[in-house]
């Protein structure tokens, strides 16, 4: 491993894997002191990130996002609802985050993971407060019908930074969303227009020019671990379990702060540390923007 062997340190007499399991904190601290992490990343670097759009054929929009080995599958199904009386011109978005038992050894069927409802709430708060989607765009017939957007995010593989990956897959799925063309039939129900129907229909489509949502200011996030004076960006599950103080910063595409979570933890953060986290997130937003743009431009060619 090329680490200096201090005298009296067990690590000189021990197998690396055994040392990692028995003294996880010391194992990681010795790496951090050398400004490197066990997976060979510098402290401030996030893992390789990929986005694949349109992974679910039966959905109106979908995306598979991977950050390192953390994998999230987000898919959108559009349904029709009657808007509430207070907001007759607005649709609705329901966001749900699921951790099925396949994703991690700690989740068992019937006993949902503790993290799932937390991430679920963070996701819907972030997406609604970012103002990314104009709910008025989801209106079909004022006071009568509007879109209900069901956005479900499934964690397929949990290896840390779950919220970051979930948010990325959610915004990617929204950017991939194709709103189906619909018409109002004689019974006052919304029906699908057949894609390549030669025959003229009596009813004109009600959403002719609303086939793609306009996404204003897309939110991106980065989770960092605070440990002593060090900041580790984009932690793995192992790092999260050993060093417990997490800070998640959410910025939009124009680097405006949308939200900041620091859910407790043994390390009290100085403002300078928070500023460093925000700076790291700002860099990360540029990376993520490029990755999402590339995924979207790849779709347009097809």
């Amino acid at each position, binding site marked *: 491993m090329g680490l200096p062997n201090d005298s009296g340190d067990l690590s000189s007499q021990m197998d690396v894997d055994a040392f990692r399991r028995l003294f996880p904190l010391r194992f990681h601290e010795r790496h951090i002191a050398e400004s490197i992490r066990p997976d060979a990343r510098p402290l401030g670097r996030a893992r390789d990130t990929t986005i694949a759009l349109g992974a679910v054929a039966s959905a109106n929009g979908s995306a598979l996002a991977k950050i390192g080995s953390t994998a999230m599958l987000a898919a959108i199904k559009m349904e029709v609802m009657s808007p509430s009386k207070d907001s007759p011109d607005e649709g609705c978005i*329901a*966001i749900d985050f699921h951790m099925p038992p396949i994703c991690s050894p700690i989740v068992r069927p019937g006993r949902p993971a503790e993290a799932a409802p937390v991430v679920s709430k963070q996701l819907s708060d972030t997406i609604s407060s970012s103002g990314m989607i104009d709910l008025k765009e989801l209106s079909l017939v004022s006071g009568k019908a509007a879109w209900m957007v069901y956005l*479900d995010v499934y964690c397929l593989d949990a290896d840390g930074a779950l919220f970051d990956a979930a948010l990325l897959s959610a915004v990617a799925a929204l950017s991939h969303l194709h709103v189906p063309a619909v018409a109002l039939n004689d019974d006052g129900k919304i029906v699908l227009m057949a894609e390549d129907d030669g025959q003229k229909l009596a009813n004109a489509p009600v959403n002719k020019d609303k086939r793609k949502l306009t996404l204003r200011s897309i939110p991106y996030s980065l989770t960092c671990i605070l440990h002593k004076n060090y900041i580790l960006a984009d932690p793995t599950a192992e790092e999260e379990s050993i060093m417990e103080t997490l800070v998640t910063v959410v910025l939009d595409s124009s680097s405006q702060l949308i939200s900041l979570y620091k859910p407790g933890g043994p390390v009290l953060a100085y403002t300078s540390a928070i500023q460093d986290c925000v700076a790291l997130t700002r860099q990360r937003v540029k990376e993520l923007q490029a990755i999402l743009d590339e995924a979207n431009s790849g779709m347009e060619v097809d």
Partner: protein
Amino acid sequence: MAGKGGTTPTTYSPSPTTQKTKALIFKENDVDWVRPDGRDFHQCRPAFFRTGAVNAASGSAYAEFGNTKVIVSVFGPRESKKAMVYSDIGRLNCNVSYTTFATPVRGQGSDEKEFTSMLHKALEGAIMVETFPKTTVDVFALVLESGGSDLPVVISCASLALADAGIMMYDLVTSVSVSCLGKNLVIDPVLEEESYQDGSLMITCMPSRYEVTQLTVTGEWSTAKINEGMQLCLDASAKLVKIMRSCLKEVVTASQD
């Protein structure tokens, strides 16, 4: 944000405009109809397998047959639940679930409970449970997208995930189903064909031992039809196991390079 005003409004997914009941994909006494995806009656969908889909698991596999996409993760052998009594042999625990977007209409993945027990029964005969006494092996499946023949795909994929996890088995387990539509038998049916079927037959077997671990028949079948259907399934299983085996070999040769 969904719960605006406290209650979630009732929603429906817009149905196609063409209200006339969709024409049957085949007509009675007609032998010349075409399957929705243009396959021959006795031709399976192209199968794709990949092991190691989930890093957090001891072993895992992803399978894709047309639009049917499933992931299976295997955990363990690990400590059994505290409430379990002492057991000389290992335990097998299975679970099958659907994503909310797996089916054409949201949240209709129905047969989860039934599939969970059928997956358990299909696999238990093939696993050498005496090799992991006192512990449990968990086999969890998630159907990402349901495109027909879901259970057979889950079972085949699960046996590949078990092999990836290094759990001892007598042989790989493969599963194939046929649907009876009028006078014809169609193999590896898609969702649309399953909804029109008059009967179905599913065989789960260990191809190299020529042993059947599970056989389910629903609907009305003549003995001759059952024989024909079983032979079709067994032949397809022999081909399917070759694909699964080559998938396992690929991983080994890739890691050796």
